[in-house]
């Protein structure tokens, strides 16, 4: 199915295309089973940022009101990209890890199942 329209064409650019980010990119990431933070987070970041720096300096601090953040070891995480199994290299950049504009990453940390052990 495609959109039905009047006129000769119906062709518009995507509103969130990468060129709107001035060299940066928009990425999405969620720490599963920590649902007091309700949704995956979204970031605007440069592609040459090291994945470890992102996790330690940007991502983890966003969960500062969650007691699990003190205990987390990201290297023991179970990672997914676009809901498929995936293994990042922590000392490489986003770009080197194949993380592109609008990538969706999820990480589960077995043993850290959120507050009360019920995903909160």
């Amino acid at each position: 199915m495609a959109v039905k329209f009047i006129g000769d064409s119906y062709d518009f650019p995507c509103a969130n295309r990468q060129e709107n980010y001035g060299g940066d990119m928009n990425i999405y990431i969620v720490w599963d089973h920590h649902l007091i933070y309700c949704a995956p987070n979204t970031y605007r970041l440069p592609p040459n940022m090291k994945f470890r720096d992102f996790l330690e300096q940007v991502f983890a601090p966003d969960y500062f009101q969650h007691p699990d953040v003190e205990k987390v070891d990201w290297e023991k995480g179970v990672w997914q990209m676009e809901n498929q199994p995936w293994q990042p290299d922590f000392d490489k950049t986003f770009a080197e890890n194949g993380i592109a504009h609008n990538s969706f990453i999820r990480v589960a940390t077995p043993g850290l199942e959120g507050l009360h052990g019920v995903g909160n």
Partner: protein
Amino acid sequence: MAEKPKRLNLNQKYQLMTRGLDWETTYQSMDEVFPYDRYEGIKIKDWDKWQDPFRLTMDAYWKYQAEKERKLYAILDSVAQNNSQLNISDGRYMNAVKIWMQGVTPLEYAAFRGFAMLGRGFRGAGARVACQFQSIDEMRHYQTQVHAFSHYNKYFNGFNQYSRIRDRAWYLSIPKSYFEDAVSAGPFELITAISFSFEYVLTNLLFMPFVSGAAYNGDMATTTFGFSAQSDESRHMTLGLEIIKFMLEQHEDNLPIVQEWLDKWFWRGYRLLGLVGTMMDYMLPKKVMSWRQAWEIYWEDNGMALFNDLARYGLRPPKHHEAATKEKYRITHEFWSTIYQFSHATALYTWIPTTEELDWLSAEYGELFDTVYRPRYEYWQELHEKGERFFQKRLPVVCNVCQIPIFHTMPDDPLMNCCLVSEYKGTKHQMCSQGCLDIFNREPEKYCQAYIPPQQIYQGNCGGASLEDYRKWLHIKDEETGEYYGSEDHVMWEQWQAQAAKPTGVAPAS
């Protein structure tokens, strides 16, 4: 001898004053005069078969509506004169009214515009006339609501920027995008979306909670306009049912198109109603019924019965309704958790329910509530008491179709966020559910253009990326946002309560 002029009976009058004024154009072809009613693929063989769902002429309409208007404004005047704001159940209640004013009232205005287009768009005069009346109804709903709420605006925060934030605030892009999706479709899809899917199928889930909720919570202004709009709504519902039957009776090719629209608009309507359910479960200090119960009565019983009836036209119940039913135990708690943690970027206040209210939620929602959401609220309450009120500082991923932050969880796993991806023109798009993913994949050319607030903020189009800049761009003051307890509304409400409790003084000596 002059004969006494005969009076027309109602039916003759209706025929002459509506369809009798219509004609087949000859200087220009009908296709050029009505350029929009064929491109969607709906085939109409004979517009004369349209059954007018209500026989109303303009003079009768004006007379009837003027009568209602007189009564309504008399009551609104007495609401103002009698300081009726003092009679509401609790200061928190006013946030339900703010949600209405910010989210729903602008939809009335959008509906006025949409139906004005339909009142010009169809080549059948019967359908055009019905849409013209509805257009005027919707304008009137918009005006009477603004008038009714203007009284509350004198006392409470959160009302004064309603039209600006309708275009700018992230949470109001949910209702806004819903309606803009409909009005940017063709006329048959628009009327299916609004008149049938929303006003006929889902209306009880919108109207009942707000209007009964207002009545239960001592809000005379909202109750009064609600009742005044009710007779219009019953006309709108009949129009919704008529258009579906008409399309299906006119041509067998129409069935698959109508079915796709029902699939789409059921899911979009359901997602939008999550906001209403949250208001019912959390913003009404005096409860009407829970979202779960309303869903069971109005969808699982009444909605399914309707689709059983429609089966004779070949229609089946909308896709993914089973997923909606699975979500009935969680959707409002997930939504409240989201508004709670992002309320510093809304013109609303939020709070943790009282112990009594938590008990009511436990009774209504059972085990899942007791194991997941109740402990979550208790944890947030502890943080609040320590002076660390929980707010989310980072922007959330938002669904590219329903525009709701992706707090939604997987149909069979209430502890896992559901975030589905579809790539179009080299750009990935995220959706909250299979329902929204299907809608995106059916018309990616349309949804790839969606204005998604966090993306726009990061692209630099919303006044800046910090919360302060964003709030400034919304024209919302810090004091109008965030936690209810300790807010300006709360402090004022407590003062009113204290004054009411004081003895009125000693009677003057005679």
